């Protein structure tokens, strides 16, 4: 469904991403894992049109999207939920969600999608008139995902959705991601929290210094000794125990 081929990105003269290719099929969760500065976020930003790729192609169901402006990419059906939430902190929760529907002409559809978001995150309905900046970190993350969903995406790009959240909240966020998949959503998940990401995703790509170094079914990747050593720290967590 979403296909990235030979993508390279550079800032000034530094190559952030070098010639990577990957693919996500419909209804799949794919995780992209790597250490800080490996190029995961750059990859996402290129897909969502925030940065211009130096070369390569990005297609959604065959439609070329590389080099298109963000608005075009959103209307094609890809939405990027950025790292660090980035909610509109001085707008209310309701207004934040409405912004998700900015490109959707038919406001009835926007309402429907908002109802769907409220079903996923009932807490947002309670906070509707509150300024987004006053929400807790977890609620902001839910709002950010919810706002993304109101755009009516086919593909959801989630950048570090668990970053800086309490473990209990992380669990809830991952539950929602799973639920979204059950509803047929295609998800690209960028995480430093490799354990949880691999637990939830069907396939995993590992990125290092701008290149993909390993890929395969998450269960297999999680068994890789190198991966275990670097990303899983050898710890037994609920996720690794689940996988094994």
């Amino acid at each position, binding site marked *: 469904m979403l296909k990235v081929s030979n993508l390279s990105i550079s800032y000034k003269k530094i190559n952030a991403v070098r010639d990577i290719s990957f693919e996500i099929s419909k209804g799949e969760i794919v995780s992209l894992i790597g250490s800080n500065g490996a190029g995961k976020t750059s990859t996402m930003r290129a897909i*969502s*049109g*925030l940065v211009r790729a130096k070369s390569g192609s990005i297609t959604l169901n065959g439609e070329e999207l590389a080099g298109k*402006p*963000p*608005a075009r*990419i*959103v*209307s094609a059906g890809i*939405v*990027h*939920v*950025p790292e660090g939430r*980035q*909610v*509109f*902190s*001085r*707008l209310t929760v309701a*207004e934040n969600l*409405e*912004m*998700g529907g*900015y*490109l959707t002409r038919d406001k009835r559809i926007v309402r429907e999608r908002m109802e769907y978001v409220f079903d996923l995150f009932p807490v947002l309905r309670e906070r509707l008139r509150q300024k987004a900046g006053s929400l807790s970190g977890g609620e902001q993350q839910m709002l950010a995902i919810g*706002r*993304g969903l109101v*755009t009516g995406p086919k593909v959801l790009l989630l950048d570090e959705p668990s970053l800086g959240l309490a473990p209990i909240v992380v669990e809830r966020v991952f539950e929602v991601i799973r639920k979204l998949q059950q509803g047929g959503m295609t998800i690209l998940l960028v995480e430093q929290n490799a354990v949880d990401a691999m637990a939830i995703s069907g396939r995993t790509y590992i990125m290092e210094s701008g290149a993909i170094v390993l890929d395969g079914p998450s269960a297999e990747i999680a068994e890789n000794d190198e991966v275990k050593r670097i990303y899983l720290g050898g710890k037994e967590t609920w996720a690794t125990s689940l996988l094994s």
Partner: protein
Amino acid sequence: MGYFTAQLISAVKLGSIYALVAIGYSIVYSIMGMINFAHGELLMIATFSLWVLLNAGVPFALAVALAILVTALFGILIERIAYRSIRDAGESTQIITSLAVSIFLEALCQAIFNSSSKALIIPDFFSKTFRILDTTVSVIDVVTLACTLILTLAVVLIIRRTAVGKAMRAVADNMEAADLMGIDKNRIITAAFVIGSVLAAVAGILYSGKYTSFSNDMGFMLGVKAFIAAVLGGLGSLTGAVTGGYIMAVLEVFFSGYLPRGVVSYQTAFTFLVLILVLLVRPNGLFGSSNRQRS
């Protein structure tokens, strides 16, 4: 008593003009984080457009509408040509550029119309006077106040209620996140310039209508004062812009009306000193928030 009321009324008139112009500064600032020093020149553009149209025999109401339109077009052009490419440059670059735009527009106007002062002839209706309590008020004073109230209310409604207004606030709040929602920031910024320009155009016409004579240098000082009013109220806050505009006018009018002889000629200095003092005590203005978050 009569003297005081008269002073108060002229403060309200002047304050209305400042408020209209200050709102424009504030909107553009909160969205782009830039100070558009050329904003004051829009008053000049509106006035000259109206003057040309009236001289060409266009009926007054139509001429006013066209003058506002022309001013809005200039606002769009200024943003498109001069400001778009420096959007990510530093504060000082933006200030300098807008100063240059200001000088350019003023000089261009001088080149076309020369720098002599001109008279704007508005329908007699506006200069009719009547008495309220113990003071004489003219129709244009009432129109000025009414326009300010209506336009301020309209701007508040646009920004609070409409999709464009909400998108404006979203862009101001977090430009990148707005991008990711598919909000075309160029269009939103254009909309902000249009709103600012329309308000400036109305302010310019009201100002020249009141004082009837004008020249190509009318805009800069008015602009600077309105800008300082916006800063005083807290850049980025509409309430702040309006309040700042009226405070600025009250200071100016009352300093010149009540300072002792011998000191009264320093009124400009006093006004600015007070403003500088306020800023030193409250660096973000009266209604400004200290933790502005931009990305």
